């Protein structure tokens, strides 16, 4: 089959407007689709980050104190009684007090410095507080050092600034502070006058927040041996025995209320399992991915439909010429090849322009929304998709054209 490009180009010159419109549409579609794919991929990557928590069995109780005038020792007595009650429940494996929990959204974070005189922070760490049950409750993996001893756990009253002498850090924070894997036993300063010494390293412990700032310090977390006896409230993180999550979630708030009724556990979201927490914190990311997905699909469909429409029109207009070509000896496959090639030429024009546009759009989004650079792989995928889409869309009208009978040449009109 010998495809002649010159006659196609000559014919296209007579349809400048239509050609340009299809090329423009393909270009714009490419620009939007590859940026949308890029956004989808980024959001999905956010959502697939591992929290490090045994998400299947862990849930969180948001416990607020109804009476704000309790002293720290009163609160601490209550917290210890609560924890004892929780740990004794048949469906519960372990429980820890906390001032926050992974994927909470927002939350406490501290600057981290290596020396006391340092003003500019070395990095930033999400701060978790808990007792010696924290690691077991969340299901974290201790990869070096040891867990907290019960006698290390200190009491922290309402928003006191206390730096405990020992700390367990996530591997990401350990590596950031002391590259080379010698973090154990080293000390650092975290917004306090006294150093804190690394006694243990856990494998993965995601931060509380998932916003841009948190992403730039992803996985850098520290755990301090503190019972956060804040007058406003406390989180109880509870790990159910395998398969007993539902039972534990029913029993736990009841047990707490039996301890003392002067507390508030919101009936709506006071007790949340990790599936819910995980789902909620990534609402924005998921929404964006869905929206971009819908737009991509509809956009490709409309572009394809547009190509079908315009090509059908051209075929209709050129019935007589096609008939003449057929009468002069062109085979059906020649006609088919003609239209496929024509579309390929137009699509190629479109994707070349589209590649430039796609990069321009990405640059604009980078400036405007602090997004990162798009890998050219997305453009590559987009180009491929659009070329195939063009060929697919043109197939039906082209087949119809190839079936035009040579008799058409003799008809008027």
């Amino acid at each position, binding site marked *: 089959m010998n495809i002649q490009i010159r006659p196609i180009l000559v014919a296209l010159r007579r349809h400048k*407007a*239509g050609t340009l419109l299809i090329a423009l549409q393909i270009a714009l579609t490419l620009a939007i689709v590859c940026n949308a794919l890029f956004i989808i991929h980024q959001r999905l990557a956010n959502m697939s980050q591992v929290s490090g928590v045994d998400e299947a069995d862990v849930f969180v109780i948001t416990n607020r104190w109804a009476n704000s005038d309790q002293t720290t020792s009163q609160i601490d007595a209550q917290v210890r009684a609560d924890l004892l009650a929780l740990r004794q429940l048949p469906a519960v494996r372990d429980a820890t007090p906390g001032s926050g929990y992974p994927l909470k959204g927002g939350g406490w974070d501290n600057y981290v410095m290596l020396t006391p005189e340092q003003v500019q922070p070395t990095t930033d760490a999400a701060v978790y507080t808990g007792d010696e049950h924290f690691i077991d409750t969340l299901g974290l993996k201790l990869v070096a050092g040891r867990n907290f001893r019960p006698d290390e756990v200190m009491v922290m009253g309402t928003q006191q600034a206390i730096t405990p002498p020992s700390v367990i850090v996530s591997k990401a924070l350990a590596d950031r502070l002391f590259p080379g894997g010698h973090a154990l036993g080293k000390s650092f300063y975290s917004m*306090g006058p006294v150093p804190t010494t690394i006694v243990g390293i856990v494998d993965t412990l995601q931060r509380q927040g998932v916003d841009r700032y948190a992403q730039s310090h992803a996985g850098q977390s520290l755990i301090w041996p503190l019972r956060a006896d804040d007058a406003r409230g406390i989180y109880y993180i509870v790990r159910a025995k395998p398969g007993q999550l539902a039972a534990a979630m029913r029993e736990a708030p009841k047990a707490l209320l039996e301890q003392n009724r002067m507390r508030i556990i919101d009936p709506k979201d006071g007790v949340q399992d990790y599936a819910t927490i995980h789902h909620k914190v990534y609402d924005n990311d998921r929404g964006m991915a869905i929206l971009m997905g819908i737009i991509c699909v509809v956009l490709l469909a409309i572009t394809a439909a547009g190509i079908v429409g315009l090509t059908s029109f051209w075929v209709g207009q050129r019935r007589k010429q096609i008939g003449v070509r057929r009468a002069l000896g062109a085979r059906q496959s020649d006609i088919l090849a003609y239209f496929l090639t024509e579309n390929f030429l137009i699509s190629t024009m479109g994707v070349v322009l589209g590649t430039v546009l796609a990069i321009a759009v990405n640059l604009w989004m980078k400036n405007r929304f602090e997004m990162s650079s798009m890998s050219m792989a997305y453009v590559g995928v987009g180009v491929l998709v659009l070329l195939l889409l063009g060929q697919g869309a043109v197939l039906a009208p082209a087949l119809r054209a190839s079936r035009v009978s040579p008799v058409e040449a003799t008809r008027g009109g």
Partner: protein
Amino acid sequence: MFAYYFQLGLRSLRRNPALTALMVMAIGFGVAASMTTYSVFRAVSGNPIPDKSARLFTPQVDAWGPQQNLKGGEPAEALGYVDATALMRAHEAKRQTLLYQVLLSAIPAGNRDMPLSLISYAVSSDFFSMFEVPFRYGSGWSAQDDDARAADVVISDALNLRLFGGANSVGRTLDLSGHDYRIVGVASHWNPRPRFYDLFSTDGFDEEPDVYMLFNRAIDLKMRPSGRNSCRGSLSFTTWQGYLQSNCVWITPWVELDTPAEVAGYRRFLTNYAADQQRAGRFNWAPNVRLRDVMQWMDYEKVVPPESRISLAVALGFFLICLVNTIGLLLAKFMRRAGEIGVRRALGATRGEIYTQYLIEAGTVGLAGGLLGLLLTAVGVGGIGLLFRPQIAKLATLDPSLVALTFAVAIIATVLAAFYPAWRAAHVQPAWQLKSS
């Protein structure tokens, strides 16, 4: 003539059903995507207090210094206790308030119910007049009450309904977190969004607060902020006094300034205040202050979620593609009738008439696209909860103005898209067409 062309347009819609359906769908989807994302954008970027937004200012004073302040040398987004109360004492603005979020709980009478957790703000007396809080019963408290550190509260309509069945509860006593308070006012439903007055602790789209109490009273009761708190450097406070004197910021100040002269005057005052602190040795850096009004503050705090901007931008791009698509399809549709146009031109129709006829025909396509777009926008607005947090999603509504805008955009865009195809149709050479038929 318009009615006749409109009829012709309608008839022509039926002539190439596939082509017409394609155009209508392109316009419909394009308009719907734009309108759905616009409805969210409109809700999150609107001016929450239009008549006063240019007269309300939040002052900022850099108490952290150039080494520890925010990116670009910006001072902290809130004030610490020392600076906040100093600004209040100076009283350089006619109206002024401090505010921060506190956590309160209401203990219902009897022991039947669980305590309720209440979203609350500690504010100064001017808060209510500055922000035009509407009252169902009673009013706010007075400046004298501020000084007397009274146990007064204003509660929301919703809380009044829950606790008192909606009756006038002004003058009644309410136990909040173990302390008795006197209700002086019940606010009517008031939840400006974005919540411009507290962008430090909220993202602007939280639930309506339940209780407003005296700032001074909250300080007396050592009530820690339940919202955000941000500190710098090495901290070692263990007492309430230590916390108040620390560099932690947690209080949002607002002042009302009516004239440019007052604004300039307040700016001078802030600079002088910071210079005084420098002279006193509290700051060892030059004055670094800001005075932003409501819209500037919302802009600086990036209230509009990037998701909203990105989705609007992408939807508009999508609409543009739909329009390019429509231009091509209209061209095909019009040029298919070149013969017919030739006959009409030969019979004396002017180019202008052809032009008008085809623009009106495009308008009918736009109208149909608008109808479909409206339907899809309704679906989109209904399903926006999939894409945005509930607090934001419920702000997006299909109100009459959005309906009108949907139609207007659909029709105007289609007519604009038809300019070129109609021009081509009007320039059909009658002789050519007549010859070949």
